[in-house]
């Protein structure tokens, strides 16, 4: 049976970081732009 105990390689770590970075940047852009719009509600 395989488990997460198996060591991950350096490449996997880079891949992991890049994967999360892509979606974080996309989502971050959307959240910041929405916050700018939402701020008008409290002006």
């Amino acid at each position, binding site marked *: *049976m*395989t*488990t*997460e*105990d*198996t*060591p*991950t*390689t350096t490449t*996997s770590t880079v*891949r*992991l970081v890049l*994967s*999360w970075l*892509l*979606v974080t940047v*996309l*989502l971050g*852009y*959307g*959240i910041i*732009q*929405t*916050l700018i*719009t*939402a*701020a*008008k*509600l*409290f*002006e």
Partner: protein
Amino acid sequence: MSLLTALDRQHTVAPAGYSRWLIPPAALSVHLCIGQVYATSVYKNSFIAHFDASQTAIGIIFSIAIVMLGLSAAVGGTWVEANGPRKAMFVSACFWASGFLVSALGIATEQLWLVYAGYGVLGGIGLGIGYISPVSTLIKWFPDRPGLATGLAIMGFGGGALIASPASRQLLSLYDSDYDPNVATSVASGHALVLLFLTLGIGYFLIMMFGVANIRVPAEGWRPAGWDPSSVREKRLVTTANVSAANAIRTKAFWLLWVVLFCNVTAGIGILEQASPMIQDFFRSDGVSTVSVAAAGGFVGVLSLFNMAGRFAWSSTSDLIGRKPIYMVYLGVGMALYLLLALVGDVATALFVLMAGLIISFYGGGFATVPAYLRDLFGTYQVGAIHGRLLTAWSAAGVAGPLIVNGFLDQQGKPGTLTSSAYQPALLTMVGVLAVGFVANLLIRPVPSAYHEPTTPAAKEAAA
């Protein structure tokens, strides 16, 4: 090996040491793209001007896409389970991107039917297949935290609109220097719309390919380090058995959950669909609203954030307190909030925004938690296919919610003249809708063993 064979489930099994934390961003990359469907209002006025068509004729594009979402998820669910998430994501990306490309052709040639066929039909199929494609895989990778995993992915669907709305405005401004997104009456040219659709089609295809490359299914028997499967058996409403999609729709539990989702979505859509005029109407006195058009747009943005955050936060919370209790919160507290909104919603803007935001967070939470609820009731065997069938509740609620709200408001007066009291009948009706969902949730019981898949070879032969 052909391309389609390489995408098969058996060629997608993760090697030893493959990190399960690569799966949520793979799922997010699909949901962040298909979530664009909630940002179509950005270019609606430009479409109306370009095609010289009515609001209804343009609104139908969105309606076709949502109906096709429900139908393709229901019909294609079993295919997704059989062929695996990688092929499903690839097919979804092809449909979603080609929907934009065909629509671009329709805009360029001023043929509206091509936009119906492109974005509506092709894009809608991409939506349905893409929405369910990573769900069962996430549940299998995260048996210890299925709510968190599906919450992360389905949060992306809410986040997709947050990205697509500003990105579309900025791209249209880039492609048409005369277009000003800050002016309500400004519309983009047909040429700019064509370029926007080409950009989105190509861009979304590339981002979704990233998900296709990273998605894997866990090897047979894989489980997270330190996780004890027997811990599942300690909870009454969480089964260790498996139910097929064909059998699931014969159970009371499935249809009660269908009602729960339908009621929760109907109530949420009631506010979402009417958000911008609603806040202006609630704070209108002597015919003039104290909330400006720009501030009302800000309110829509706040609701989008609550919608997205609710998907992740509430679904993750369900891993701790259980699925049935969290739906009691969505529906029970939702009832109280709707009642307060109807009775004292016009007291202060901040109070109104907070209550509406919480209601929308429950709406998003309901979407994100339902795959884990299905896993608890029917096991992991065909949970994606069962999820696809359940999403027909979404399509039905998409029709019922706006009908209820608009039906009541049409009787109260003309848009731009309404006040908070005009919303009371619709809001109190939503309290009743949520009450129906609350009772349906209370009635959900474990699925009888007669519907379970056989586990021993002898039992399998007998069942065959």
